């Protein structure tokens, strides 16, 4: 799939870049991601510090949060990440189409349009499930301030304070909603950007094997968001 010859005509028209050896959009995205690492460091680091500093322990995993549902959500995000990278591979190979029959086989081969769409659907699905989860949680009485007075959760917490981490409910709510909320915000931004690219660049077939910088750059962002979720899922839901 790698061409071995390269003509000058194939060289994309960007200025000489003596520095990183990568084009500026990609370099800029990496620098931004480094910056985003520090943003999540502030949030996740505070969570770790606050949780360590607590006298009583956190609610047991699964007591308050719906882990199977979130597990599904994790699966969705992982799928979207792999479809993103498939989209990247597709356009690198010049497959701009949606689906095409593979010659000699019954299989269908997905192109950029197909894989991008899958990515967007999975990403939007993730956001949807998260919103659903939030609504459920708040309905049960789990809010950023702790367990709401008189709610189901508050009663459970009274009955079994250890399992539900009654002593630290306030901090549990604060950190949970802040971290997952800002992750969700990142996902939403990604979905919106991808939709924009889908309609302005992907569908009109503006990308080519010679220049698909937009796909690669948004892909980096998307994988990073996935990466953050992998960490968050473990430390927020499972530990």
């Amino acid at each position: 799939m790698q061409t071995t010859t390269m003509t000058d005509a194939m060289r994309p028209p960007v200025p000489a870049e003596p520095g990183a050896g990568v084009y500026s959009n990609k370099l800029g995205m990496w620098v931004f991601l480094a910056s985003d690492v520090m943003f999540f460091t502030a949030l996740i680091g505070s969570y770790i510090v606050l949780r360590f500093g607590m006298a009583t322990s956190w609610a047991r995993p699964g007591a308050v949060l719906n882990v199977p549902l979130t597990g599904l959500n994790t699966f969705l995000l992982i799928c979207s990440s792999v479809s993103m990278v498939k989209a990247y591979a597709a356009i690198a190979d010049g497959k701009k189409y949606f689906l095409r029959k593979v010659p000699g086989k019954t299989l269908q081969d997905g192109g950029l349009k197909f894989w991008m769409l899958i990515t967007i659907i999975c990403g939007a699905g993730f956001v949807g499930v998260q919103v659903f989860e939030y609504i459920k949680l708040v309905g049960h009485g789990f809010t950023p301030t702790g367990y709401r007075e008189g709610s189901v959760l508050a009663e459970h917490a009274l009955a079994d304070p250890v399992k539900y981490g009654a002593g630290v409910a306030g901090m549990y709510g604060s950190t949970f909603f802040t971290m997952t909320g800002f992750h969700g915000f990142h996902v939403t931004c990604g979905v919106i950007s991808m939709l924009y690219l889908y309609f302005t660049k992907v569908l009109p077939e503006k990308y080519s094997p010679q220049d698909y910088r937009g796909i690669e750059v948004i892909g980096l962002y998307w994988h990073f968001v996935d990466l953050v979720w992998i960490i968050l899922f473990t430390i927020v839901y499972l530990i």
Partner: protein
Amino acid sequence: MTSVAHAKPAGGAHDAHHAPMSFWRKYIFSTDHKIIGIQFLFVSLFFLLVGGLLAMQIRWQLGFPGKPMPGGGILPESMVSGGVILPEYYIQLVTMHGTFMVFFAIMPLLVGVYANFLIPLKIGTHDMAFPRINMWSFWLALLAGLIMLAGFFVPDGAARCGWTMYAPCSARPDLSGATYSQQLWSISIVVLGLSSVMGSVNYITTIINHRAPGMTWFRMPLSVWALFITAILAVLALPVLQGAAIMLLFDQTIGTHFFDPGAGGQPLLWQHLFWFFGHPEVYILILPAMGMVSDIIANGSRKPIFGYHSMVFAIIGIAFLGWIVWGHHMFMSGMNPTLGSTFMVSTLLIAVPSAVKVFNWMGTMWRGNLRFHVPMLNAIGFVSMFTIGGLSGIFMAATPVDIPIHDTQFIVAHLHYVLFGGSLFALFAAIPYWYPKMFGRMMSERIGKLHFFLTFIFYNMTFFPMHIIGMGGQMRRIYDPTIYDFLKPQQPINEFISYSAFALFAVQILFAFNFLWSLKFGKKAPQNPWEDNGMEWSLPNPAPHGNWDKTPNVYRGPYEFSAPEAGDKDYLPQYVKLPTDRDPIPAPLSAGGH
């Protein structure tokens, strides 16, 4: 994604391809880095004025507590009563003075203005890597400033927990006495963080990827080096503050408990996060100043900078150490004393690269041929005042000595010696130095010299005595020192400081006049008024849109003053090709990798 500027082949002049732009596109929603720099300049000078006016009111209250302030009558009753500043207004004054000066005056003046203006010009490129993001960075910074300013006009007055916003005071309206303005503070900081990150991503990418052929890393002027390292600091530090400000905002609005000790929150967490950002921020505020002063001192001395490489490594060293010293702001906070020891040692070590820089500046002047133009005078002022600021820092770095002077006027003196004596003197050097490049005219040398000498005198009269009253124990941010018996004997010094501060402020009118008057009536600038070596001086003044028609070549380092091969001139610009010079090989379009 791909902006127009990118899709163009290297060396394409923008002017040639564009139809004349409308006024709005050219000067307001401009994507030209020079226009954005100038926009930043005007906006941050405005905020500098705001900060200065607040400082004058603080000085009135400290010098003459309980006396009606002249002109205080125009302020509403919630701030002053019968012309006398109220305690709740006083803490708004100190909070907003700090906030405006740090976030909206010094930081954008150094990073917003000069990173934008100088980086592409000095590395020989046409514009920033992402011109549109650059424009957004400016508008977001302005938005953040306006949100912050709006704090004065909401019902309960401006934010009032000090510019450091220590929780839990800042997190709870019933403790601080302000609701909306505290939230506005947090929102403004989040927006500002976004603006800074956008700007810094741009600076880093531009410097790494868009240097002209021949502009190798060690041919970059120290100003560009400093701005590069500053941008790295900003990109990694600002998000931490953003995260902290978001948590604070949630504490203030939706009732989370991050900093609420009642529910297991940790007030010290805010301090850790704030200063983890805050100490790199300190270097964001001084490194660009150091870089520009290096350029100007080499120019004024007509000599190559002394020890270019060690200057670069000193910048990197300061930036690196800057990440592991934040605890020295918290020596008295009840932090683990063992950590205090670690932080003390790392803090003291910062004296080393700082000393290297100071001695190298002196080494540059040694056996030079010194020209005392206004930028040079201010740069020398910078070196001498930064030295005092740096040395007074040692007192506070040594933890036992810090005990009596922590959070007193001594630290106020220290930080003003670094930020006013350091950053602001550097700006008084940089503004006239690159003024011709911005506006095509020179600022008046005569007024400039007068301004420098008067500022230098009154500045020292204002801030030096603060060391003394700080040693005497006067706490910072107190509304009325005279209620303490141990502070009463110092009140005459306080009065003296206030008179000096008013004079200092008045002298700045000279600068403002010089700046504004020269816009229209200044002497037309020759192409290279300072006989400097930088790439920017190969362009006409003011520099045209798109800078160079063709990407320039760079033939040597930035400080070849008085080089033997320069002939009878005492400077040899980076862009001049001598017969012995060969053209640099342009970097291959795809550099082998991907």
